[in-house]
């Protein structure tokens, strides 16, 4: 068991003022069988317009808001304490939709042939998932900047490179071919200064986190912020605004042991 103090902040700087800004944030971690979150605080800046809470169908906490007045920057900062009990996720049934491919995970020729060459052999679900994660880890090279948030699993497989989001999407695709229910997770991990993405696998009883980027089960240094069938279901920040502006995003996170 570990007690962690976390702080996570995203700043957006627009190249010029924007108005009519609506946003949904999935930046607030919630308690499940693995992590117990106490007193999470979310601060949003600038303080313009209304902010309220909602939930989505995947169980995530949403912070929603609207800023009609012109503003040139936008940031949110979430902090709190997490108690992590073990490496396994929450227990309980998995919705059937976690067993089906999405547009981002839909396998093409490359993934299908990779799967044929690397069919897992173990009897239990978690071991098969670990086998797939290991083969994938061997095959892929972690390279920043070659993929984006809209890159599909198949495209990343074709380049056999990408970042944590791509590793997660490919593993989800492979697991679903294998008939295993699984989901995409966004969160914070101890040694990264940014957000991280990994996969949770359901073995019929409970969820277990696997980090394909590092080819290991997630340990007690990972804090989950949100989950869904793929990245598109649960972006940490989604916003729309009026204004012909580009934006620069900076993300920082800090986890310390208490």
């Amino acid at each position, binding site marked *: 068991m570990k007690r962690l103090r976390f702080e996570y902040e995203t700043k957006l700087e627009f190249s010029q003022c924007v108005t009519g800004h*609506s946003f949904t944030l999935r930046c607030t971690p919630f308690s499940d069988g693995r992590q117990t979150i106490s007193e999470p605080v979310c601060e949003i800046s600038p303080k313009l317009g209304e902010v*309220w809470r*909602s939930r*989505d*169908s995947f169980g995530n906490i*949403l912070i929603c808001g*609207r800023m009609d007045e012109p503003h040139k920057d936008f940031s949110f900062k979430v902090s709190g304490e997490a108690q992590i009990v073990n490496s396994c996720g929450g227990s309980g049934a998995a919705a*059937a939709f976690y*067993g089906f491919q999405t547009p981002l995970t839909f396998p093409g020729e490359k993934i299908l042939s990779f799967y044929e060459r690397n069919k897992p052999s173990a009897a239990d679900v978690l071991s098969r998932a670990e086998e797939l994660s290991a083969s994938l880890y061997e095959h892929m090279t972690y390279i920043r900047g070659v993929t984006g948030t809209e890159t599909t699993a198949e495209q990343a497989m074709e380049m056999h490179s990408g970042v944590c989001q791509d590793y997660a999407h490919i593993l989800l695709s492979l697991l679903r071919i294998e008939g295993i229910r699984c989901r995409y997770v966004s969160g914070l991990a101890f040694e990264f200064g940014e957000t991280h993405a990994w996969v949770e696998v359901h073995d019929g009883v409970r969820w277990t986190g696997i980090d394909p980027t590092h080819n290991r089960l997630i340990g007690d240094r990972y804090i989950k912020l949100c989950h869904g069938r793929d990245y598109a279901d649960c972006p940490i920040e989604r916003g729309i605004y009026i204004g012909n502006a580009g934006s620069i995003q900076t993300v920082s996170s800090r986890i310390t042991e208490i």
Partner: protein
Amino acid sequence: MNYMNTPVADAKAVNELLARYGVKFGIYKNGTFNEQLFPFDAIPRIISAEDFSAMEKGLVQRVDALNLFLKDIYSDGKIIKDGIIPEVFVYISKGYLAPCAEITPPKGIYSHISGIDLVQAQDGTWYILEDNLRIPSGASYPLIARELCRMASPGAFENNRIADNRNYASLLRSTMDHVNCGGINVILTPGRYNAAYFEHSYFAEKTGAILVQNSDLFVENNILYMKDYQGGKTRVGAVYRRISDEYLDPMTFLPESLIGVPHIMDAYRAGNVAIINAPGNGVADDKGIYYFVPKMIKYYLGEEPVLKNAPTYLPFYEEDRKYVLDNLEKLVIKDVSEAGGYGVVFGRDMTKEQLSDWRRLITEQSRRFIAQEIIDFIDLDVMENDRTVLRKADLRAFVLSGEKTQVWASGLTRFSRKANSFVVNSSQGGGFKDTWVLLPE
């Protein structure tokens, strides 16, 4: 048939009135938007009281079962667990929306306005062609045509016992009121470049709902509001939205949507507003799910289906696939992911090579297609250059689910303007007729 008692003599006058009233249908072709008049044929389709009463029973039953199916699929999924429908047909459907899981809409109604397409075979039997549970359009056309025909030839309506169809607006209004969560009713339109803009404005006028575009609405604290001219806000209790699911809320669905209302899904999830029809209904009117509707009726209602499906085969099942491959020449193939008459091909129109291409496609992508026997549906008389010709026609019946489920005693009869063509969709250039339901003697 003798048309003396119908508005045929005044057809020209009625079409001129329709043009003047702006009864139009927009079509996108090659990237440009064109509005065209929706050609009206003055010879009505006539449905006897007896025929209608059977049809009514079957439609109410079907729509009730479809509503129960949607409620089930977005909660427990009992019909899957009980092995009636394979789960793959539900979750692979483009119409299934995971972000709608576990949301129960106000009063548990998903499909408030259902447009059920039927055809009548040569022997008089009615068959269901497809269910439209998302935003079925078209009720305004027979409604305004009737209004104009009454003006042009009032005698026709004095001399015939025809069910008055002018109650559609009040049915629609009470359907909205029934699920309204407190506040006003609005009709949300994408604007005048939408194919059915005429209908949106017409219904707003007839039901007293306010016609709005997304910029008139906003969400705050999970409540939907309409902006008023003084900068104030009025709470909205029900939205009859005429934009499709994927554009409804850029915070949940397509982020690039410019016609949606950010956070409307949060207001809906919180139970603070009714969305008519509910998002996610596409899973129930999917062409693949169609095959299972008679099974749903038995499963949820314990009744035998009153109305028949057209004989349908799912290549997904080996036995059906074999039949389809062996009999492709006489079947119609439909792509389950396409709507509006797109993605429909007839085996009899194919060359040898095309047939073998299709056989390969069906084998490779067995979930993507359904195959149906071609129903030789009846031709109706249509006026063309002052003489009558025979043309294929279908019927879209409108079923409204409010406090109870009711069938509108009228409907949109669409006909093909090409001889021997079975494609009647207005987006493919078809025309329409009024539908007269006769009152019992």
